């Protein structure tokens, strides 16, 4: 049941394109929570995040962020939202300082000291154009940029894919830190279960465009005593696929 305090509420979110159907998915995210959006390739994780960002449009259902409608109040929401995609899209000619100045124009609550703090902490060079940085460093730059305005909700789409273990650890640490003050939240999609185990306290599992589980990680594991999250995930996805095949 959704409450007024929920940071993110998806209710019956539906989107169809080509042969894919995101079929009435619903879940919610509380303040202080880190939710992992888990699913095999093509399950609908990226589509869900793009729908929240309004990069894709809903066919049916609703998305509420900070109690605001994702379509009607798009700008108000995005002022309090940080985003990091799998491919860190950054203007390649600009360096980190240029990016900071640009984002300061876009975000009224931009905190340059905070941004520079993250740059320093992640070891991102400030004078090198983003296009010349390695994938890991670009991801860290994008993460610093996503956190420079102290977002109330951090959305991350496969943030750790293709990164070395050291960078992945830093990203996971940052994820935990964001939600640490109990007022903000993180939703991150991944298919790397170990990252989710390390960072998330809630899990939503998607398969073939449907939510097959959405609850606290401990409660989910409690229903499958002795199994790791990866094993639970595999069993749930397998069961879902068998049910899908028998119903069709």
């Amino acid at each position, binding site marked *: 049941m959704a409450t007024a305090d929920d940071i993110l509420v998806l209710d019956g979110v539906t989107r169809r*394109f080509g042969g894919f159907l995101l079929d009435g998915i619903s879940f919610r995210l509380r303040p202080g929570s880190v939710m992992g959006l888990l699913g095999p390739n093509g399950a609908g994780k990226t589509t869900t995040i*793009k729908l929240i*960002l*309004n*990069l*894709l*449009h809903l066919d049916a259902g609703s998305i509420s962020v900070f109690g605001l409608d994702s379509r009607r109040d*798009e*700008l*108000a929401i*995005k*002022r309090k939202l940080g*985003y990091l*995609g799998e491919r860190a*899209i*950054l*203007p*390649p*000619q*600009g360096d980190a300082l240029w990016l900071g100045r*640009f*984002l300061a*124009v*876009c*975000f009224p609550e931009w905190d340059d000291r905070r941004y520079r703090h993250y740059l320093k902490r992640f070891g991102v060079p400030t004078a090198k154009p983003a296009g010349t940085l390695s994938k890991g460093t670009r991801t860290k730059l994008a993460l610093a940029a996503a956190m420079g305005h102290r977002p109330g909700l951090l959305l991350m789409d496969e943030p750790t894919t293709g990164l070395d273990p050291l960078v992945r650890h830093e990203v996971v640490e940052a994820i935990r830190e964001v939600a640490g003050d109990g007022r903000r939240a993180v939703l991150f999609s991944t298919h790397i279960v170990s990252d989710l185990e390390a960072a998330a306290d809630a899990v939503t599992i998607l398969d073939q465009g449907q939510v097959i589980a959405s609850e606290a990680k401990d409660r989910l594991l409690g229903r499958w005593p002795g199994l790791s999250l990866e094993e639970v995930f595999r069993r749930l996805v397998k069961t879902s696929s068998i049910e899908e095949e028998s119903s069709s």
Partner: protein
Amino acid sequence: MIASLVLTDLFRSAKRFAVGLPMLVLVAPVVDLVMGAEVASGMVPAFFTLLAWDHLQQTALTEDKEQTWEFLRVLPLSPVTIVTVRFLSNGAAILMYALVGTLTAISIPLVRQAVSPGDWPIFIAFTVAVSLLMMAWFNARYYRAGYRGVMTNGAVTYVILLVVGVAVLMARTPVIPVIRAVTTAYHWAQAQPAPALTAIVASTLVLVVLSWGYSVTVFSRKEFH
């Protein structure tokens, strides 16, 4: 915020200006020396229009390569803001080229004398209007179909114009009424500069605003898969 974003966008084009503006400054004297003032006075606006087209194309190519649309759409910027910044930035670049081109042409005595003083406002307004209309057409196509779409479309349009142009030139007779109509319009504009200027500016602004509105509408509906 829009002014800051326009300035940021113009600064990003600094290298392009650094190459284009000196070329614009050099073209008039060189053409003047080689081909005479009459040709030079016509070459400056032609070259200026070419630079404006190159600017539009390069800006769109850069945005396409850098996935700028997706980058901007995750920020708290509305489609209206994003499209407005592009139009204002392109418009400012065109005006800058126009200013430098005009100053260059005026600063060369022989070129200055080739155009009668009363014709200068019409001459400049017509050149800027052509570039702004080019921008209006380009941006409307760009926001609808993206960089690849606008370039494919541009190439198809170019080929159609070339084929039609060659056909018209070979037929010869239909050319005469067209030339006569253009000459009549130009003579009318020379004789009555004030209404001509008003008509050029007003019709250009209306078409640019229509293009802007269309671009905002199609960009708002755009999805990023």
